[in-house]
């Protein structure tokens, strides 16, 4: 007849178990991801663990095979915009703008003032959706599901307005070389203002849910600290670099578009931990709201595209009625915009930091080479050193706050 002891311990008895209490000395290898609930996308981590503690990690970003750089060599400059949307699919407009600026630099053209304001407006809206997603997802991964819903509610408002403007919810492809696809809708201004007010309310709500939440703070504070020097050496930019005390923002340090005409502050963290990364992103959203309000006040009516038949598609009524406009239209569609030979590295402030496009033109309508400097790919390489010595549970907030985007890591 079996005793209680054998029920509990199976075939073993208590004395044997005590002998096995000594844990094995060798490390254990476990695979985290791909498609782990906390690993977005294709990423996989091969962890060497000693109990719950991470001894070493091999991070493999995985591949989606969207082939951005290869496809770009075969597409006209205009056709590349839908590809840039998919680089960072939570802030596509910023990628649109970044690529357009790179090509415009090679062409040597400057877009009209109204277009520049529109680009800043849609860019900052995208930055807000990016940060809303990042904080929302990270909060959810450490258990705060309510905050996720609140933030996604606000993101939805922005998506709705961007959809009204561009016709697409997520992959806007709204920017063109030399301008933007169409002017702002008639009631864009009041809608955006109303939206910003409501979003401020959401941010305040989330702040009360998260900032002084004991669980959230304990999961975030002191986790994966990166010093300022390390942040520079790793090439960190954007919220990640700023949380480590690196005061660097492309919008301030190398102003482009109309960023020199608006007032905003660059939040900088002190500790370089996950909690500072969260705080920096929250403050950046408030600053983006501030920029958006100033842009709405300053924007004036005017043309939204450069008036240059080599770059901008002519008006449809002209295409149907004049031979010059029709030829120009055909040339632009079939051959693409002819960019004079040259090469440039052009960079803007993306949602995750410095977003660079290294473009080489050979005089045809298609680029010879496009290389994208994606901020989260650069940041992700520091992940093994950030989680070394941490607990497995610390990987979740660390990874969430890097805000890795599969499309951006891919080529």
């Amino acid at each position: 007849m079996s005793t209680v002891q054998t029920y509990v311990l199976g075939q073993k008895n208590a004395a044997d178990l005590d002998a096995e209490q000594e844990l094995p000395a060798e490390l254990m290898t476990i695979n985290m991801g791909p498609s782990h609930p906390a690993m977005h996308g294709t990423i996989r981590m091969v962890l060497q663990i000693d109990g719950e503690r991470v001894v070493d990690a091999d991070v493999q970003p995985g591949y989606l095979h969207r082939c951005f750089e290869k496809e770009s060599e075969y597409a006209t400059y205009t056709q590349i915009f839908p590809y840039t949307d998919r680089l960072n699919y939570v802030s596509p407009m910023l990628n649109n703008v970044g690529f357009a600026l790179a090509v415009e630099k090679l062409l040597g053209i400057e877009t009209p003032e109204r277009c520049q304001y529109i680009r800043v407006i849609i860019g900052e809206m995208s930055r807000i959706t990016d940060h809303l997603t990042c904080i929302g997802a990270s909060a959810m991964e450490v258990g705060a599901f309510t905050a996720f819903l609140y933030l996604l509610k606000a993101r939805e408002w922005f998506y709705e307005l961007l959809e009204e403007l561009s016709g697409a919810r997520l992959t806007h492809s709204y920017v063109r070389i030399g301008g933007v696809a169409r002017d702002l809708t008639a009631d864009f201004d009041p809608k955006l203002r109303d939206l910003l007010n409501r979003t401020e309310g959401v941010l305040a709500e989330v702040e009360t849910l998260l900032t002084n939440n004991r669980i959230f703070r304990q999961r975030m504070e002191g986790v994966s600290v990166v010093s300022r020097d390390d942040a520079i050496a790793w090439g960190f930019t954007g919220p990640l670099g700023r949380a480590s005390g690196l005061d660097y923002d492309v919008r301030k340090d190398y102003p482009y578009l109309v960023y020199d005409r608006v007032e905003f502050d660059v939040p900088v963290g002190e500790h370089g931990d996950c909690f500072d990364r969260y705080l920096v992103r929250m403050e950046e959203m408030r600053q983006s709201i501030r920029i958006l309000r100033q842009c709405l006040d300053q924007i004036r009516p005017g043309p939204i595209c450069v008036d240059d038949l080599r770059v901008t598609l002519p008006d449809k009524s002209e295409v149907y009625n004049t031979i010059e406009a029709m030829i120009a239209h055909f040339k632009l569609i079939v051959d693409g915009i002819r960019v004079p030979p040259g090469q440039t590295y052009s960079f803007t402030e993306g949602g995750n930091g410095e977003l660079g496009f290294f473009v080489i033109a050979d005089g045809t309508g298609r680029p010879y080479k496009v290389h994208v400097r994606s901020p989260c790919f650069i940041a992700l390489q520091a992940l093994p050193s950030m989680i070394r010595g941490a607990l497995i549970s610390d990987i979740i907030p660390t990874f969430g706050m890097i805000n890795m985007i599969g499309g951006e890591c891919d080529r």
Partner: protein
Amino acid sequence: MAQRVLDDLAARFGDAVQTRSEHGDEIVVVSRDRLVDVATYLRDAPDLAFDAPVFATVIDWLGQGKEPRFEAVWGLRSSQHYHRIQIRVPLDEDDLRVPSLSGLWKGFGWPEREAFDMYGVRYDGHGDLRRILLYEEFVGHPLRKDYPKEKRQPLVRRDGANE
């Protein structure tokens, strides 16, 4: 500001470097054997202080009438002085090796792995030069100009069973 950097380099390294500016980018072309010297100087000279890595890639000039065929590119930025520079090293197709700069700037670790994966340039002294976006068994380097865009590769097994 950045022109001063180029003048400084030209004065110090003479014929070993060629400098130029293009569309606002400052470029220094250096031979492979002097790369580490120039890079170390760029990083350590207090007036230059290029402490932050920006990007690394390779250009394949096939069909453009340029010799040699490849060019390795590194972008650098100074977090103190806010200037930028690109280092370029021309590379012969038959001898695609170049010293790694990941020892000087650890942020070049992944970008160099990616360039190796996509173009097949070997970075000497990298320490962890594995493919990063493709699987180990992949044959060829897809971002080279002579790699056909439409080419497909099934996952080739290590033992060659389905070759």
